[in-house]
Structure formats: C-alpha cells, structure tokens
C-alpha cells in the first residue's frame, strides 16, 4: 500500500521490479507485497506495531536528545555538564528503554489553594507496551532564576510532588486525596531542571494496573511574599514572562523500563587519544 511504499526509494523499487522482471515476469503486486513484508519485519524487530507517522506538532525534548548523545558517546560528559544534565546512571543501568511524556494539558488549578501554586497533571502512559517492565520514573521541572532584591531569605520555595489517589470529582473541592512522593527546598536564585522521583506512582499505574489520576505539583513559598508568586517553577504555560519556549521547558515525565530483550543501556564512552 501507499503507506508502505516509502521503505525503499523509487530507484530501489525500480531495481526490485527489474530483478523480478528478469526472474520470470512475476506480477508487480508481488513487489509491493515484498516491500510490505520487508517493512513489517523491520518494524516488528523494533517492537513497533505500525510505522510511526509523527505529527508536525511533535516535540523532541532536549533532555532526550542529550541523553541519547551521552548514551551513544556522541558527546563528551563535560559538554553536557554545561547544560546541567547528569546522566541517570542508576535508572538507566536497569533499563533498555527510556520514554518521555508531556502532560495532557488538562491543567487543573486546584481550587482552595490561593496562597500557593498547585496543579494536577495527567500523563497518559497507555503507550507503554505490556511487556515493558518499568523500574523507575522521574518528573523533571524547570525553574528559572528570579531577580530578587537584597532580601535573600525570602527566596526559598518548597516543591512538593504528590500522587493523586482519588478522582477530584469524588472529593470535596480543594481537598484532593494525595500522597507525597518527593519534596525539595530550593532557592530561586538559580536556573536549572529539578528531578523528582515519582517511581512509586508510575509503578502503581503500570505494574499494579491501578487507576492513574495524575500527579499534583505544589510550589509553596516559605515567606508569603506575593512578589514572585508563580514565576519561578515552569509548571504552567501562561506565566507572566511569556510562553515562547514552553514546548522545551514544560514538565516532563521520564520512564525507565526493560522489555526483557537484551542488555540495559550501557554508556559508550569515547576513547581519549
């Protein structure tokens, strides 16, 4: 069919037709069948059910590109360090597949938390194949430095990551049933990605097949100044400073899994001269 004709370029297809013509004039339909089988075999080898046809809006997170470069030895660790990325040695050592997910943008500002910024995020993990066992997962949040006056002490934030245990519709508005997964105290004088361990929640959703009601992210300000409210951690598209680079700076859920085929991701370090 037309969707499979791309596997071999036109020149290659002509060659196949010529060869088949010389071989005794088989029907032209057979060459298409051959190509279809050829592509199906390759896709099966790659663990894909059909040929991916990416949409124009698909975004490749910089983190995944950097991870690939580090993993394949294309880039030296020193070069990557300048971007603040640390290779996830432990999770990667038990996985042969790393998947990244953006949230579904059904962003819900949790009502009743007027003093702080709290959001619920839904990540659709249904594309993870049944045979892939997830060993760990992390949530990456970007925070941007906020210029502040001389009062350094007022620059502290606490970022709390929760798993939402019940659907919001079933509980009193403003009172989500959650459990704390990870927490960190940060100062808003630096720009960097923060990584939070959300493995317990993702393992519950994937291994134990429990319902996925999402993650709740809460940013609390130790000192209740409203000056920099909602400006530091990039969890929302509509921030005062604009959303031009939202596609690259939005929260990212990363899963580490193994499909039981072959070895884990092993880093190839380039030999030094």
């Amino acid at each position, binding site marked *: 069919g037309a969707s499979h004709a791309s*596997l071999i370029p036109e020149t290659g297809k002509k060659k196949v037709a010529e060869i088949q013509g010389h071989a005794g004039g088989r029907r032209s339909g057979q060459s298409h069948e051959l190509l279809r089988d050829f592509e199906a075999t390759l896709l099966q080898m790659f663990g894909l059910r059909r040929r991916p046809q990416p949409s124009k*809006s*698909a975004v490749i997170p910089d983190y995944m*590109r950097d*991870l*690939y470069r580090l993993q394949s030895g294309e880039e030296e660790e020193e070069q990557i360090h300048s971007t603040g990325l640390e290779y996830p040695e432990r999770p990667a050592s038990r996985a042969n*597949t*790393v*998947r990244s997910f953006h949230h579904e943008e059904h962003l819900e500002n949790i009502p009743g938390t007027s003093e702080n910024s709290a959001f619920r995020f839904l990540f659709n993990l249904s594309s993870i194949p049944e045979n892939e066992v997830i060993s760990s997962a992390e949530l990456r949040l970007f925070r941007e430095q906020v210029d502040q006056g001389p009062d350094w002490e007022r620059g502290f934030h606490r970022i709390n990551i929760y798993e939402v245990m019940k659907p919001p519709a079933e509980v009193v508005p403003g009172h989500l049933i959650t459990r704390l997964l990870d927490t960190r105290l940060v100062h808003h004088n630096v720009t960097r990605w923060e990584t939070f361990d959300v493995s317990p929640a993702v393992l519950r959703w994937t291994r134990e097949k429990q319902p996925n009601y999402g993650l709740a992210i809460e940013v609390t300000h130790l000192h209740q100044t409203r000056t920099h409210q909602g400006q530091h951690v990039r969890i929302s598209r509509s921030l005062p400073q604009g959303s031009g680079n939202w596609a690259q700076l939005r929260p990212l859920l990363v899963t580490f899994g193994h499909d039981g085929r*072959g070895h884990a991701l092993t880093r190839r370090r380039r030999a030094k001269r």
Partner: protein
Amino acid sequence: SPKHHSQRARKKNKNCRRHSLYVDFSDVGWNDWIVAPPGYQAFYCHGDCPFPLADHLNSTNHAIVQTLVNSVNSSIPKACCVPTELSAISMLYLDEYDKVVLKNYQEMVVEGCGCR
C-alpha cells in the same frame, strides 16, 4: 617477490572478514520518525573459510571438522563466514503515539566475523 606478495594479498582479501555496510535511514524513508542516529554502520561478514582455518577466524571445533571433511569430500560445504560478535546501538525515535523513546537495540552491529 612483488608478484608473490600481491597474490598473497589477494588471497587474504578473499578470506572471511568484515565489510562496510552503512544503513542510511533517510534512504529507506524512515528519517521522519527516527530522530537519531541518521544511519549507522552495520557491517557484514563475507569471504572464504579455506582449509586450514586460521586462528583469527574464531572457528568452532565443529567448523574445523566440517572444513576438514570438505577438503576430502566437496559435497559437504565449507564452514560459513558469519558474525561472531555483535554490538548494540541506541535509537531515539518518535513512536506511533508521538512519544519520544530512547531504546537500546541488541545485535545491530557486527564487531567480528568468523567461520562457523
């Protein structure tokens, strides 16, 4: 002599060894969903497995026996020149659901060839 040397070189080149085989994903129209690498060197094994088998050909005992039998009975084929060591590559791609995946695929590159 130079003549003798060139004959030896030609004979050596015919023996089982690794050859270049670059797979370009854009050639097969897959560069729209495979983000990286753009292609990779897969290599392939080709060449003769003549009697007596050289040490560097990583032969199995069975290959040695088969080659010995072939030398006296040509209806039994020689041992085959095949990959004896393979390595993995990582691929970064967009899956059927537009999700970005980094995956390690085993046995994609020939590292060494031998007579088996």
